[in-house]
């Protein structure tokens, strides 16, 4: 019997606002515990929340980017539960009327593109953190009140791969909008999954479980794989799946029961009386719409069409909006899309990965790249030289031509100079030379390598090849000892 999984995801995205959602405290990560707090986010008696307008703007941005209906009239609600990281004893969230609903995003699957529905997006505040130390639990309320968007998907995914693809696409949209840093390790992009299985062809959903605490794409894949397998096993052995919340144990790669449906909280939602409903007018929404950047899906389509690039290239170039912009600026100045794409994907990407930074964090400008390509075209620099030059440009932001001269990376194209070097190489490698002359053609590359080594990679490869070929053809095996 064949089974299929039904997966719906709830994502919590921390917003990149400077201050918290209901007070003026900083949202910066990693500060001294409880240093970024005030009476309001500490939930002291008598305080009141005031909504940060930036949060509304960011929510609308995401709503528009995910094809949602923006609800012109939404309101906040209190979600009541007790926990020491929740100083008020309730979380201010949205319940009955969220700010965005009924959207979708398009993801890539092994069978092509697929539409995944977005049920709702709502605004809420984050809780604090507990640090457990021996017999005590310490409370850090710096994170309390950090703005979150909760994005709830429809149960439209059928495989762990689709779930991961959805999350990657959603994360990329958030990054493109510049409203979330997408950092899963620091918890700025968190995911809970609802998953059930059913026999293929059935239309009714099976009993679902909710998986919590999954903080990387790899873990999501693993957690879902495990959970789907677990549920199928239960059904195949004649059992029934229990509706419950399960935790993913990443060290063991398994999910474990956290609480059953009966133990589930009754959050006693009711409209937050301390905040006015959020009323939005069309002009405001329109204004945000006009400010939206090009989104990943559209950008990928455009790149493929406009630059005639393979899907693989486009995928990499558009991972990061600033990298894509950089690429486009380069192409504008030097119209050779594929050459630049190769250079960006390999050499530049390598440097960025080593530095763990975005292109905008470096001193590298599109003009630099264009100049490097001109030097290559003019034979002043070879590819090796370009590779050696790049990190220096990134670090200093200096003009590549000047740097090339300073660092002595100018290509050796002078035939006399190269001839002398070749002569020397042949003289010092008589054994290999004899072997070559007796038919071991492969050693041609060896001689090229030796010359490159001697010139620190600066020899003009084209000229070198020609010269070497010419010189070798003039030598007979008898001459070798007399060289």
């Amino acid at each position, binding site marked *: 019997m064949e089974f299929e999984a039904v997966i719906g995801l709830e994502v919590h995205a921390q917003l990149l606002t400077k201050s918290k959602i209901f007070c003026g405290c900083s949202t910066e990560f990693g500060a001294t515990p409880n240093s970024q707090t005030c009476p309001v986010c500490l939930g002291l008696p008598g305080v009141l929340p005031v909504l940060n307008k930036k949060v509304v703007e960011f929510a609308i941005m995401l709503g528009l980017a995910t094809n949602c209906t923006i609800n012109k009239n939404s309101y906040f609600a209190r979600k009541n539960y007790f926990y020491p990281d929740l100083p008020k004893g309730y979380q201010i969230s949205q319940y009955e009327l969220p700010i965005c609903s009924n959207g979708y995003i398009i993801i890539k699957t092994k069978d092509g593109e697929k539409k995944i529905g977005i049920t709702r997006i709502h605004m809420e505040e984050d809780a604090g953190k507990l640090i457990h130390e021996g017999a005590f639990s310490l409370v850090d309320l710096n994170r309390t009140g950090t703005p979150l968007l909760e994005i709830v998907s429809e149960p439209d995914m059928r495989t762990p791969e689709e779930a991961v693809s959805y999350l990657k696409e959603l994360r990329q949209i958030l990054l493109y909008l510049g409203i979330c840093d997408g950092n899963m390790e620091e918890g700025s992009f968190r995911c809970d999954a609802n998953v059930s299985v059913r026999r293929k062809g059935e239309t009714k959903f099976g009993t679902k479980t909710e998986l919590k605490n999954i903080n990387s794409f790899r873990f999501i894949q693993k957690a879902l794989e495990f959970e789907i397998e677990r549920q199928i096993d239960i059904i195949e052995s004649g059992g029934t799946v229990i509706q419950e919340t399960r935790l993913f144990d990443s060290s063991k790669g398994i999910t474990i029961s956290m609480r059953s449906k009966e133990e589930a909280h009754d959050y006693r939602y*009711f409209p937050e009386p301390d905040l006015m409903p959020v009323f939005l007018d069309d002009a405001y929404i329109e204004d945000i719409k006009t400010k939206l950047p090009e989104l990943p899906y559209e950008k990928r389509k455009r790149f493929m069409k406009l630059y005639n690039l393979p899907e693989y290239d486009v995928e990499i170039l558009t991972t990061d909006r600033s990298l894509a912009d950089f690429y486009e600026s380069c192409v504008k100045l030097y119209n050779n899309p594929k050459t630049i794409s190769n250079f960006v994907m390999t050499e530049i990407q390598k440097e960025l990965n080593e530095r763990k930074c975005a292109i905008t964090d470096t001193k590298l400008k599109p003009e630099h790249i264009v100049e490097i390509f001109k030097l290559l075209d003019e034979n002043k620099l070879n590819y090796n030289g370009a590779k050696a030059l790049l990190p220096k440009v990134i670090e200093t932001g200096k003009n590549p031509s000047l740097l090339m001269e300073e660092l002595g990376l100018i290509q050796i194209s002078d035939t006399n100079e190269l001839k002398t070097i070749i002569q020397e190489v042949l003289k010092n490698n008589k054994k290999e030379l004899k072997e070559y002359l007796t038919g071991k053609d492969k050693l041609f590359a060896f001689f090229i390598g030796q010359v490159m080594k001697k010139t620190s990679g600066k020899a003009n490869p084209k000229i070198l090849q020609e010269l070497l070929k010419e010189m070798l053809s003039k030598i007979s095996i008898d001459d070798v000892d007399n060289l």
Partner: protein
Amino acid sequence: MSLLKLSITQLKALIEKKDIKPKEIVELYIKQAKKYQEKTNAFITFDEENIIEQVKELEKKLEKGFSGKLIGIPIAIKDNICTKGIKTTCASKILYNFIPPYDATVIEKLKVEGAIIFGKTNMDEFAMGSSNETSFFGPVRNPWDWERIPGGSSGGSAVTISAKQAPAALGSDTGGSIRQPAALCGVVGLKPTYGRVSRYGLIAFGSSLDQIGPFSRNIEDCALLLECISGYDPKDSTSINVDVPPYQKNLKKDIKGLKIGIPKEYFIEGVEEDIVKNIKNAINIFKDLGAEIKEISLPHTSYGIAVYYLIATAEASSNLARYDGVKYGYRAENIKDLKSLYIKTKKEGFGEEVKRRIMLGTFSLASGYYDAYYKRASKVRTLIKNDFLKAFEEVDAILCPTSPTTAFKLGEKTSDPIQMYLSDIFTINVNLAGIPSISIPCGFDKKGLPIGMQIIGNYLEEQKILNLSYAFEQNIGGFKYCPFEED
């Protein structure tokens, strides 16, 4: 004439003329406050040193040319309004040691006008009660009869006025907590339009109902205090961004042509005879003053208590969740784990009435009951509000009793919560609608206990109800707010 008899408007004039110093006034009231504290139990915290310190600072500021509308006026503050550095307990064990690190907006405003924060007054625990008997710090007694309650929940604030322990006070009103004790103590108390006065720093009971307001001896003082504490506050999203008129300056006695509605639903069985008699007398005075009297109907009146006890308790059950013993306030000892910390702290920290209301509210919000209780109550609340809006199409103000009874005896209703809740039957609907209302003295019953009448206005029409009150007060030659004359 004794300075104690002077209203704050009169004191203000003397200070402005430099006839007296703030220090003299404050010292006089410190003496009086202490003299009657044992009898009234009106104050929970009375920090004499802090008060003297405030006066010294004020005097320094005055030398530098500081001016304000309440220079040197001692104002007693209900103990659910946060005062920076001064204990604010809500009359609860759970906050017995809580010292706010910040001032409520109304406190900031009073300080800007040069007022002296004069002690924290006793109240029903978390403002839940109508007799001031639920206080962790013991009941407050009514100066008109020491065996009787002063009303609640702002009992302490009302009593400071009628015992002359302070010339003015602030209270809070969620279902009648300013007006009912004002009526029972024979003083003036006003609940402003919801949003007129910032709630920032008022420890929440029912957030959509709570409003801070003044207690005073006369209407002039009430108008002055109201204009000092009113206004938009960016820290309170529910506060109204409308300019504050100079209520005191605008007071006028001429009320000719104003239409006063008398709601037939407020003259029902159970209202004491003497109260009806005195209200009718007041109606006649208004007629004489040129007002037009009209019988009106507020058909959904009788649903008020039910609606209120669903909405206020629902909000309270959430508002009081934060008192968990983790960060401040009372924390139970000998706890095993988190759950026992929560349970023990709340069990030991909250009083009976507070626990009763938390349970009621939790129930009305519970999944499966929400639609039948909280949601339905919210809908009926709209009907009650619409009743008033419709009435105000025809009349300028509504006149009715503040309370169905005068002050009752200590312990008389403590065992019967429903009887206690009925004390607020005439005040509650005003909070549900969010409109302003004032309670002013209008006579005494056969036992010599004060009777209050309520004048209710439309949204932001505080001036109108103040003017009506002022005309009445001037006509009867002022209110007798204090039972003893020996001072």
